[in-house]
């Protein structure tokens, strides 16, 4: 069909724009980290109470004695060969450590993020349908509370209530200490551990999506083409979901895209509070240890996720609104 070509062209152009973007992100990340005070050799030397000679050797071993541009050149060259370097703190390849931690984060964040996105949109549509009713006012108030609560505080409240007071759910980690039979009991065990941290993160994200959806839906429902849709004899559900929602979706997709970029920031808080063995905690540990290669590796992964999220958002834009691809 004729209409598909502009979309394809648009998508390819967006992907090509993303490549140099990632390159510049790497350069900037590298520079910023090396400009910050301290380095891994200082940290290791202070932890191990090493002699100045040992410290100097560490600097040479890590390549920190070379000028910054040389270090950057070496890093970029290795990067081209998919080598993210060697962690100074974990004493193993960066990529391995990241790949080790990534699944746990993906499980937590992907679950929380997708469920929260869908629920936020659906609840927002329902609230816009019953605008200014008692239920709508209560939902809006609750969403304000949910949105304003810091993740680490909400997490601690949930631990206090559900884990310590009611003793229904575990408070820390991803698996039970005493070990569970493999198969379904193990799956159930992970799910039980997943519930509280997922709710913690989902609350923040869902309330934001809810508020944007509700507001934009109200605006869209007041537009002229909604009257046309009703005059066709369509029932309310059709009008809401087929005509209003698709037009209201653009800002919602934007917010979901931006939030996806902040997923890692959210995971730092959530995983630290709940002792979840994922990327969020890895970021926290690596920054403390000034583990340059590790931090850079994580930042690269995070940056690529953000670029990817933006890319997907842009393409979704064009899919939702045909006018976007032509501009």
């Amino acid at each position, binding site marked *: *069909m*004729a209409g598909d070509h502009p979309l394809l062209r648009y998508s390819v152009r967006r992907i090509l724009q993303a490549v140099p973007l990632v390159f510049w992100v790497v350069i900037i990340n590298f520079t910023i980290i090396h400009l910050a005070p301290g380095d891994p050799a200082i940290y290791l030397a202070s932890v191990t109470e090493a002699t100045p000679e040992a410290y100097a050797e560490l600097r040479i071993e890590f390549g920190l004695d070379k000028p910054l541009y040389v270090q950057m050149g070496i890093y970029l060259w290795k990067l081209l060969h998919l080598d993210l370097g060697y962690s100074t703190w974990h004493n193993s390849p960066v990529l391995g450590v990241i790949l080790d931690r990534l699944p746990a984060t993906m499980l937590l964040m992907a679950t929380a993020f997708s469920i929260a996105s869908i629920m936020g949109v659906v609840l927002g549509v329902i609230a816009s349908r019953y605008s200014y009713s008692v239920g709508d006012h209560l939902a809006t108030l609750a969403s304000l509370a949910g949105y304003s609560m810091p993740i680490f505080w909400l997490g601690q409240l949930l631990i206090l209530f559900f884990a310590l007071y009611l003793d229904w759910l575990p408070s820390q980690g991803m698996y039970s200490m005493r070990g569970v039979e493999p198969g379904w009991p193990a799956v159930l065990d992970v799910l039980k551990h997943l519930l509280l941290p997922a709710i913690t993160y989902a609350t923040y994200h869902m309330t934001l999506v809810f508020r944007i959806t509700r507001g934009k839906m109200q605006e869209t429902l007041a537009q002229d083409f909604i009257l046309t849709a009703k*005059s*066709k*004899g*369509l*029932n309310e559900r059709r009008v809401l979901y087929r005509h209003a929602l698709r*037009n209201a979706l653009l800002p919602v997709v934007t917010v979901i895209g931006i939030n996806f970029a902040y997923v890692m920031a959210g995971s730092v808080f959530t995983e630290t509070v709940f002792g979840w063995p994922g990327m969020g905690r890895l970021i926290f540990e690596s920054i403390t240890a000034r583990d340059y290669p590790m931090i850079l590796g994580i930042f690269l992964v995070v940056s690529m996720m953000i670029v990817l999220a933006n890319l997907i958002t842009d393409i979704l834009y064009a899919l939702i609104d*045909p*006018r976007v691809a032509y501009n």
Partner: protein
Amino acid sequence: MSTTPENRNGLLRVSDLRTYLDVPSGVIKAVDGVSLEVNRKEAVALVGESGSGKSMTALTIIRLQPVVARILSGEILLNDVDLLTLDTASMCDLRGTEIAMVFQDPMTYLNPVMRSGAQVAEVVLEHQDVSKGEARSQVLDAFERVGIPSPRRVYDSYPHQLSGGMRQRVLIAMAISCRPSLLIADEPTTALDVTIQAQIMDLLAHLREELQNALFLITHDIGLVAEHCDRIYIMYAGQIVEHADTFTLFAEPKHPYTEGLLRSTLSPDKRVEVFETIEGQVPNPTDMPSGCRFHPRCPHVKDICREESPPSLDLGEGRMVACWLYE
């Protein structure tokens, strides 16, 4: 007005309709005791200035008045069924099939993110038990009928890719796709270029011949209706002030407001130095004048006009005027 109890040709009969709007500054009596009739296959115009309540009358008839509107009294009989007593589902069944509506601004009354053809096909699919392919061919037929030069291309186009005149044709195709017995056109040409206006009016007349539907045309342009309508209702400040067949009304207007309207139209064989206008302004809708609502602007005002609102006087042969001059 002539209240013929048995009118076999009767299609729509509105009696004593009152639609009031609750707004922060008070109550707007947008439609205040309107009675009118439209017979089968007939073209009837409702003429008035902006804010006279003519669009609100149309929206109330199809029961799509805004949420702030209250219908205080009245009957809207379509084929002897009172639309005001129908439940929402039955009303949805009638919209698009029995009554269809064409709105003012083709720029904003089409859904911007749906292909034109799909928007029309939706009406067919909603009301008829047909396959998607069958619906598509019906839509292409309708497109041809409303004079769209390349139906297939327009079918796959989004509204922003079409001109204003073409969009209005799409909206008309949408309205006639299920062959309604009553087509309500609310200022269908106001937003269009003058040359396109004539084309659209001709199209509506032509379609009426072909499909044998009744046309209820709402407009502020009394010049527009002369050629195309059988009868005319003149509306002022929420009330019908005069009714007659088109020829009589133009030849011999009774109500001072109608006279004023006719005087203020321009025509090529009437060279004027100064534009004729009606003195004064449309009254504040939340604070209507006492007595006859036109009295502050009326050149023939008498004492009684300020105190009592005039009765609807039956002048015979279907003529009606609401004015103290003829009491």
